[in-house]
Structures are given as C-alpha cells and as structure tokens.
C-alpha cells in the first residue's frame, strides 16, 4: 500500500504543519524542530489507522477510505496553512507541503532519511519470506508462529514512521510507493517480496532522482516533484490495471 494512497503522507503533512502552528502560537522555534517529526509520525499513524479501520480488510474499501482520509487531512492542512500564511509570510508555500519539494533538504537530515530508508529496506529484505507468507494466508502464517494482524500493524507503524520523517522535510511526494513496486512486479514477473524489495528500492531511488531532475530544470521553471511522479504514474497505473484484468 502506497503511503500516498493510504492517507499516511497527508497525515504526516498535517502533523508537520501542526508543529508549525504550535511553534508559532507559543513563539518557540525550538519546539518546532523538536516535535515536527514526532507530530508528523503521530498523525501519519492516525491516518493509516483510520484507513485500515474503515477498509476492514477489503481492498476496495481500503482504497476508497484512503482517498477520503487523504482529502480530509489535505483539507485540514490547507486550512492550517492558510491561517499560518497570514501571520508568517516567510513559511514555505502551500505547494511545498501538498506536492513535495526536495530543495529544502540538507546533509544532516539527508543522513537521517538515508538511515531510515536503509532500516526499512533492510528489515523488509530480511523479513521478505515472512511478508510473503502473510500475503498468502492468515492460517498458514499462524501455524508458522506469525500473528498476521500484529505483523501488519507492526509494518504499518514502521512505514508511518519512515513516511513521517520524509514528509516532515520534503512534503508529500505522491505515487512513488505505488508505481515503483508495480513496475518492478511487471519487469520481474514475480510478486515475491524477496525480489520486489531490492528491485523497488533501486528503482524508487532512480525514479525519484530522475523526477527531481526533471522537476527542477527540464520545463524551464521549477515544479513540485509530485507533478512529475504523477505524470509517470498514470500510464503505469493503466498498464497495471490491464495487466490485472488479463489475470496474469
């Protein structure tokens, strides 16, 4: 599940903006830096939890719930930012939070993000066989000593944390988490996490780097990264859907 579609990213964005709101209300900039990622994490987790709760294990219900939750949190983010923009004109523009900008990243935070990414990818690779089993059957997982609902919850928390760290710094970048595994799946013709995790990590880094390069210069002016990743995502989505309909 892509954090963008599940509402996780929108939750994280609202959390990061809420940190701004709190810091400006209390007039304490230190507070903002200390709690931004934590608040982003809390709301990212809340958004994912709401999506999963409303989805009740049904894939269609989950997607619809994710879209609704995304819009809800985006709307609250717009409200909060419109209010803040009046008081603090020096804040990054709304487009930054809603559509993603890589420009504000510095090397210290890069190190944090690289560590988080390495942890998530590394853990997912080590756990790939167990992730596969939970994808196949709750019953078989259970006799092999995995509690499937707890296992999914643990990943939800981990992914929400990683998403919050990213969104707090670069805003909401859409569709990479959705599109990249699908491309990997089509290229490799294999949906096992053992193949998808390393392939998605490599392909994801490549896609974001290329998208960032295009978003900054190719059009002659700078646009948010999400505009580029979404433009790439649509044909991939269509391809994935026709792929699914053929039943292979």
């Amino acid at each position, binding site marked *: 599940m892509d954090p963008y579609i599940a509402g996780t990213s929108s939750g994280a964005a609202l959390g990061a903006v809420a940190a701004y709101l709190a810091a400006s209300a209390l007039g304490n900039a230190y507070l903002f830096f200390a709690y931004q990622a934590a608040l982003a994490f809390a709301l990212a987790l809340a958004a994912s939890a709401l999506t999963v709760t409303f989805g009740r294990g049904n894939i269609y219900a989950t997607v619809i719930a994710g879209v609704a939750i995304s819009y809800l949190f985006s709307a609250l983010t717009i409200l909060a930012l419109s209010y803040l923009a009046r008081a603090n004109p020096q804040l990054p523009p709304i487009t930054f939070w809603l559509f993603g900008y890589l420009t504000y990243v510095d090397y210290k935070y890069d190190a944090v993000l690289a560590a988080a990414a390495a942890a998530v990818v590394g853990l997912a690779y080590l756990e790939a*066989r*167990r992730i*596969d*089993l939970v*994808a*196949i*059957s*709750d*019953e*078989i*997982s*259970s*006799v*092999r000593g*995995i509690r499937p609902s707890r296992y999914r919850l643990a990943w939800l928390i981990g992914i929400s944390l990683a998403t919050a760290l990213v969104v707090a710094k670069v805003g909401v970048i859409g569709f990479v988490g959705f599109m990249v595994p699908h491309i990997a*799946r089509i290229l490799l*013709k*294999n*949906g*096992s996490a*053992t*193949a998808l995790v390393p392939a998605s990590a490599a392909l994801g880094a490549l896609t974001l780097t290329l998208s960032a390069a295009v978003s900054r210069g190719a059009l002659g002016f700078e646009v948010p990264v999400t505009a580029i990743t979404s433009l790439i995502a649509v044909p991939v989505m269509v391809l994935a859907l026709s792929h699914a309909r053929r*039943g*292979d």
Partner: protein
Amino acid sequence: MRVEGIRLSLGGREVLRGVSFEAADGLTLILGPNGAGKTTLLRAMAGIYRPDAGVVEVEGPLGYLPAEFFNVDMRVADVLLAGGGRLEKYSWWLNVVGLAGYEERIFSTLSTGEKKLVLLAKALAEGRTVLLDEPTANLDPAHKALVMGLLSRLKKVKRFIAASHDLDLIDVADSVVLLRGGTAVQLRPEEVTDEELSKTYGARIRSFRLDGRRVFALDF
C-alpha cells in the same frame, strides 16, 4: 491431539458451545452444515482464535491447507519458501503431489486444482499434523481422486484433521466428528449412519454400497 470443551464466540454468536474430540493417528474428518463452525474449529486449533473456554492440545509442528488464500503472483518456489525453509524439502513434497518441476511457474497462473496441490505440498512439508480445510472442494474428479489417494496413503505417516462437506471423505477417515448446534459427536466411520448424517444436515441423505465404497444420494 485433543480438543476439550471448547467454547468460542464470533461476532456475538457462540459458534462452538463445548466441543470435544480426540484426533488419534490417521484422518479425523469434521463434518457439519454451513456455519456449523468447522473452519472456526480448525482456526482455533491453529491458534488464530483464542477459545473463551476449553483446552486445545496440539502436537506440532502443524501444517495448514486453507480453504481460501490470496492468488499471489509469486513463483511456486516463493510460495513454498514463504515463512522460511529449504527448497529441497519442499520440492520433494511437490513431487509427491505430482507437480514435479513446478518451482518456477507463477502461482496465480496455475489451475484451481494445481494451486490447492501446491499448498497441500507446503502443508505436508511443514507439518507432522496437517489441518485441511475443504481439501477436495472445487476440484475436478481427477484432482479429487488424486487428493483422496494421497490422503489415504499419507495418513500412515501424517496425522490429518480435515473439515469438509464432502461425504466421500468418510471412506478415507478413521474417525468422524459431526458438528451440530455448536457441539460435537465423535463416531467411527461405520457408525456414521444415514440417520446421523440426515440429522446433522437437516436433509434426507441415503447411501448405498458400490464396490466397497459408500455412494451418497440426496433427496430433494
């Protein structure tokens, strides 16, 4: 392997109201109408559901053939290796179920019968005791004959507990558990008369002997 006085509620309804039975070596068959709690009972034995009361004594390791599973687009080898293990062991069981050389095939492209056999091979490789949920459902006659033949031969080395609607499995069973009204009656296969079956299902069921096999007819 023993289940003693299990009570279990799902969604506010008490599905199992004190179910007891013993699964000795061989094949124990659980029969009962739709919604009687067959799958619930298997899941309780697998540890997915925690009973409100009662004891489940499990002799592991357990294997599980689920009635429903996700149609994943992984290689058969990845499906078998899901959860961990060595491929040689799984390939050996893949041979036994008649799917030698299927390791590189994509699971989602297999037929219903082949998918079931892949998961049966996985369950056999993983368990000394194997829980089977509807092992013969949705199979064509050839695949059903294959699965029944496998169960009747392998029950000498594995302990099977199967939940099913398929009365033909009575011929393969060493013990039959009839689930009705949330409680269980355990009988030897020859004690499962047409009257017992008719009472269990609330339908008129008659059977005949043909070449030593029991053949069932349903009045409607």
